[in-house]
């Protein structure tokens, strides 16, 4: 219990705080804000665990006490946070695969054709918003009608390009 519960509890608090804050006011730099929130919740929860464990003494039950319990709780929280951010990115932007499935399901027994899918999923829906995201995130700059990758964008793409090369896989997308 003392190895698992603290990390799970801190993660639950993170989700609750995320929902409440984002519904009240969605920040402009969402991922940076989420990282700050993640670190903040962890710091608050670790302090709370420490204070509560000291005040409750031997009755502290599932609260972490030894260094290994704290390290394990932080590791679990960090891993859950990474998987949570991954899931949230699919929430933030519509996934083409999921949209295709929902459109086909909506067509029901009549099904739908490739042309019908294409009419709903054009460049304005699938490409332009993501291009705008890159400009808004300073990963790409727009100069006299031309999109140019910034040093930040190059830095971000480098591990993916190198990793695809290691895997001997072609460019994705």
């Amino acid at each position, binding site marked *: 219990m003392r190895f698992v519960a603290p990390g799970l509890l801190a993660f639950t608090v993170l989700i609750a705080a995320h929902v409440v804050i984002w519904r009240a006011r969605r920040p402009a730099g969402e991922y940076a804000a989420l990282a700050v929130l993640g670190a903040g919740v962890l710091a608050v929860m670790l302090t709370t665990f420490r204070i509560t464990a000291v005040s409750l003494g031997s009755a502290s039950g599932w609260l972490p006490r030894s260094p290994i319990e704290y390290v394990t709780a932080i590791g679990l929280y960090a891993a859950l946070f990474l998987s949570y951010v991954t899931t949230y990115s699919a929430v933030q932007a519509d996934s083409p695969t999921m949209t295709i499935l929902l459109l086909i399901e909506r067509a029901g027994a009549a099904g739908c054709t490739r042309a019908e899918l294409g009419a709903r999923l054009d460049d304005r829906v*699938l490409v332009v918003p993501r291009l705008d995201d890159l400009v808004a995130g300073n990963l790409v700059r727009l100069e006299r009608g031309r*999109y*140019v990758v910034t040093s930040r964008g190059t830095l971000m793409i480098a591990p993916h390009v190198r990793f695809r090369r290691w895997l001997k896989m072609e460019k994705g997308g």
Partner: protein
Amino acid sequence: MTVALGLVPFAALLACIVAHVLVSRVLPELPRHYGLALGALAGLVTLAALALLPIGQAVAPEDRVGLGVAWTLTYLSLVYWYVFGFFNLGESARRIRLLVELRTAGDRGLTRAEILAAYNARMIVDARLGRLLAGGQVVERDGRYFIGKTLMLCGAKALVLLKLVFLGAPSEFAGRPPG
């Protein structure tokens, strides 16, 4: 020793990634999800080995089950991040692909028309339909597409639910025209 114990699930993730890279290089014809599954399995074996070896014996016997559960949960979360948050970004993320195209163009950059000639909605839909048909999530009859296996559709519906919770709308385009 405390820090070393905390790093066990991360060491298992490293083993998973190394195994995935090796399998992808040695068996390029293998379907990609099999390569990922083999990598995840290699990581799990590493986790079990580290838990059974002296590193796992360093903790008190009554703590071993709890620590094992925490390590397994941590490892599974890390694998989820690796598959969907890292590997899949290079595999299918539109932003990454756009950055790759723009990086190739260098300082000159590309106009919107040039970008759309290299990477466009038709290519995106074709690639995804191909994957959905290959995986059986979608089936084709007389040139029309129908839902096949429903697991991924359930995932899509769960995402719509999460969009409603976080964004208050079922889609990023709800209430405003795309583009």
